[in-house]
């Protein structure tokens, strides 16, 4: 159990490292030198050393507590995955990250933050593909407990072979949460930093910590659900590989305009829905 605590801190740092690798790979593809891979870890530390206060226009309780909630929900998600808990809880937490984004964006009173928050509401449509992939997983494994799903894969092989479209849907979901992706409209540069604009100092450091943990947990869930039981080092390797593949997509594609991003994700959801109904009826 104490090991779990250390693992939690490791997950946070490794998640930040993955984000750093992400930036580095994008930079190298675009023929820039790019920051060192541990840049995001340094970022988190740097922000925690900066001066901290609360903007005068902000709704202060919300402004601060939303940072606590952001770290809290992903800590909970981490333990749920670790314990092989319910997949629905993970997705619930994923959806709640939206609320956290709204809270970040709206609580400060800044117009940039507000636009980030409003875009986060618009992009809520990207959550739907996720649920459709759950349905496909349930049809095959008959359970929503991550432990059961992993156990099922021990006998029947990785789920990604059985339900490839569902894995693709979940991949898109992870992609939309990565910075610089075509779907990351909530933090695009024309609205400064989107919902994070007004959170600086320790608040931002907390957000960075949450981002690291979030990246780790999402990738861990993806690997556990679609690749089955892997040894620890192989999991880390798989995470790096998935991150690199996402970096390639991010490097080669422009960011979509907000409503286009949603439309494309919605179309994708429609396809997934048809696939799941097909699976449910004929599978």
């Amino acid at each position, binding site marked *: *159990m*104490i090991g*779990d*605590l250390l693992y*939690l801190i490791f997950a946070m740092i490794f998640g930040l490292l993955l984000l750093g690798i992400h930036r580095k790979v994008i930079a190298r593809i675009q023929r820039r030198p790019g920051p060192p891979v541990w840049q995001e870890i340094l970022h988190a530390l740097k922000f*925690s*050393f*900066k*001066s*901290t206060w609360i903007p005068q226009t902000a709704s202060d309780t919300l402004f601060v507590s939303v*940072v*606590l*909630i*952001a*770290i*809290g929900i992903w*800590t*909970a998600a981490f*333990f749920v995955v670790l*314990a092989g808990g319910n997949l629905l809880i993970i997705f619930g937490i994923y959806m709640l990250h939206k609320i956290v984004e709204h809270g970040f964006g709206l609580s400060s009173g800044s117009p940039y933050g507000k636009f980030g928050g409003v875009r986060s509401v618009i992009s809520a449509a990207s959550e739907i593909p996720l649920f459709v992939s759950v349905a496909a997983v349930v049809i095959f494994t008959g359970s929503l407990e991550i432990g059961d799903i992993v156990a099922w894969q021990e006998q029947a092989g990785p789920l990604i072979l059985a339900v490839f479209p569902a894995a693709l849907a979940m991949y898109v979901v992870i992609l939309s949460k990565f910075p610089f992706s075509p779907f990351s409209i909530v933090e695009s540069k024309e609205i400064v930093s989107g919902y994070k604009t007004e959170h600086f*100092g*320790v*608040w931002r*450091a*907390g957000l960075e*910590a949450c981002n690291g943990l979030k990246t780790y947990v999402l990738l861990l869930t993806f690997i556990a659900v679609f690749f089955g039981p892997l040894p620890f080092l192989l999991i880390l390797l798989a995470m790096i590989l998935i991150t690199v593949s996402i970096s390639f997509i991010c490097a080669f594609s422009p960011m979509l305009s907000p409503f286009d991003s949603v439309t494309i994700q919605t179309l994708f959801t429609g396809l997934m829905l048809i696939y799941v109904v097909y699976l449910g009826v004929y599978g």
Partner: protein
Amino acid sequence: MKKKTAGRIAGIAAVAGTGATLLSELGTVPPWLGIAVVVVTFPLFLLFLGLWWMARETDADIPFLGY
């Protein structure tokens, strides 16, 4: 917030989190309770640790306003 307060809260959160984890390992409290305590205390610990190590111990400088 004073440096001392922030440090204390971070300390309490750290002790509570590790304590609950230890207790659940020993079987005194059920495992879910240990996890729940960690979920609550971990964010508190992180934030107040940050607030603690950057907090000023003296008064701030007079800001430069002469543009």
